[in-house]
């Protein structure tokens, strides 16, 4: 027997063997990180310098930031984004279900819709909606009738143009989500005597949500920016407001900067919302939730700091 503790007479027999000394080593130095940080910062600095030397009246941006017209444009942009997405998601779910239906008429109709709306630019669609009066002089829904030009307001053209186009994309997202659910789930609910519709609502769609939510958040942020195209139908959105204010005040380019800042603020707010929504749906399937942005920033800062060798 050559157990070391037996050999050492000085060791007290009752004491447990001491745990080995903690490793003290010089950590790997990440010189590349420092170099790339310096390069990136100097390029940014140069760009910033160029902008500061330009003939730009930066003072106009804070002056008009909370201008009434601008705020009305922001409100309209957010409102239009919500409604168009609502239309897109609702119709998208219907189209996805039709596309997967055993009924060949439904499936072909959905296929045609998606083919058509994905095949034409949304800007062109907006222009067509506002000009459809060339086909329909009047509208008659039985309970409501009007001249087309009075019926198709800029708001309605914007909503239909953006929402119907979005539905085609949402349909594909929802279809992918539905198809990601294991077939055994459908079989199990059919075996329990559930109808197709009930199976879809109670079993398939709730499980498809985890796949549907992330790209839908993406679509939402995309929509927020795509609303700037509704200038084509003369709807008063954020960009239109910025241009109006710009031509009145003579600070046209400055107002475009202002609009950009507003768009960035809005997309940031929605991105954060999306992040927490995804985190919520990851519950139960992911073993550990991903870190919140704050946790991630803190972790990155810690890695930049000079590593302490021993504690």
């Amino acid at each position, binding site marked *: 027997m050559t157990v070391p503790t037996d050999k050492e007479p000085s060791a007290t027999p009752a004491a447990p063997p001491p745990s080995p000394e903690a490793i003290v080593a010089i950590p790997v130095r990440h010189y590349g990180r420092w170099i790339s940080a310096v390069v990136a910062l100097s390029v940014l600095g140069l760009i910033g310098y160029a902008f500061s030397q330009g003939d730009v009246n930066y003072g106009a941006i804070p002056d008009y930031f909370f201008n009434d017209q601008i705020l009305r444009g922001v409100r309209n942009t957010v409102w239009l984004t919500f409604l168009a997405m609502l239309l897109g998601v609702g119709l998208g779910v219907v189209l996805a279900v039709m596309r997967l239906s055993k009924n060949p008429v439904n499936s072909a109709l959905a296929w045609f819709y998606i083919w058509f709306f994905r095949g034409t630019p949304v800007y062109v669609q907006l222009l067509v909606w506002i000009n459809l009066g060339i086909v329909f002089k009047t509208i008659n829904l039985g309970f409501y009738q009007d001249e087309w030009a009075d019926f198709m307001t800029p708001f309605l053209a914007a909503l239909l143009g953006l929402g119907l186009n979005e539905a085609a994309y949402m349909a594909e997202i929802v279809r992918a989500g539905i198809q990601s659910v294991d077939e055994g789930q459908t079989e*199990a609910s059919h*075996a*329990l*005597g*559930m109808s197709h519709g009930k199976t879809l609502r109670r*079993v398939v769609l709730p499980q498809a949500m985890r796949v549907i939510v992330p790209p839908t958040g993406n679509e939402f942020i995309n929509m927020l920016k795509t609303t700037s195209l509704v200038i084509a139908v003369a709807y008063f959105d954020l960009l239109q407001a910025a241009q109006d204010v710009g031509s009145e005040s003579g600070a046209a380019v400055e107002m475009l900067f202002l609009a950009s800042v507003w768009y960035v603020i809005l997309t940031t707010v929605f991105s954060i919302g999306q992040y927490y929504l995804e985190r919520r749906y990851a519950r139960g399937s992911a073993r550990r939730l991903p870190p919140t942005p704050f946790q991630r920033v803190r972790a990155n800062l810690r890695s930049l700091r000079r590593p302490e060798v021993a504690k």
Partner: protein
Amino acid sequence: MSESSGAVPMVRAERVHKSFGPLKVLKGIDLEVAPREVFCLIGPSGSGKSTFLRCINHLEKINAGRLWVDGELVGYRQHRGKLYELKDREVASKRRDIGMVFQRFNLFPHMTALENVMEAPVHVKRESKASARERAMKLLDRVGLADKAPNYPSQLSGGQQQRVAIARALAMEPKLMLFDEPTSALDPELVGDVLDVMRGLAEDGMTMVVVTHEMGFAREVGDALVFMDDGVVVEAGHPREVLTNPQHERTKSFLSKVL
């Protein structure tokens, strides 16, 4: 329903054929399952036993032959010598009387064990939530999992999930239970709990059709056994006779490999 041999068979198959495209899976199955009987289907993989089980509740459509459950044609209505396909809604309503347990459990992962068991009674039978909850708790207790009611399937072991799946099927108070290799996906030490639950069901007189590789269970609990190979019934009889004294070469060679 009486136990006498004159009663309507719970399942009757007459020259049942089923093919997937060019692949013939069932090539003329004839068999009868009496009420309150435990009927075991054994055979090598690919022999068509699972497919036949799925035909019984019309998860698969048969191509030829006739199949009856409790005296009624599966998936069709016969009227003046013509067959009419049943509507989805009618098929669904017939499935309510047939419970099915799958090899891979197929519990709903977004619902707790209790919600899984309550789902069909509440949303198919329109039972009140309070009474469905009470019955679901009794069923979970019966399969020994009353304490797991608030747990999600991902928090349960395979054996526990399968017992919840059995409780979920029983919640519809079926007259016939189909088991599709219920213990094949389980760790060996978890198999016993599931078989115990099935044994209890058999003792209570439930009619059961069981596709299984558990020869011990078949011998001990089964009332009838069929050995299938390559889409046909090779040998049928009482489990003890077939398993201990097989008559056909194919049965002998199969049993020599699994026993």
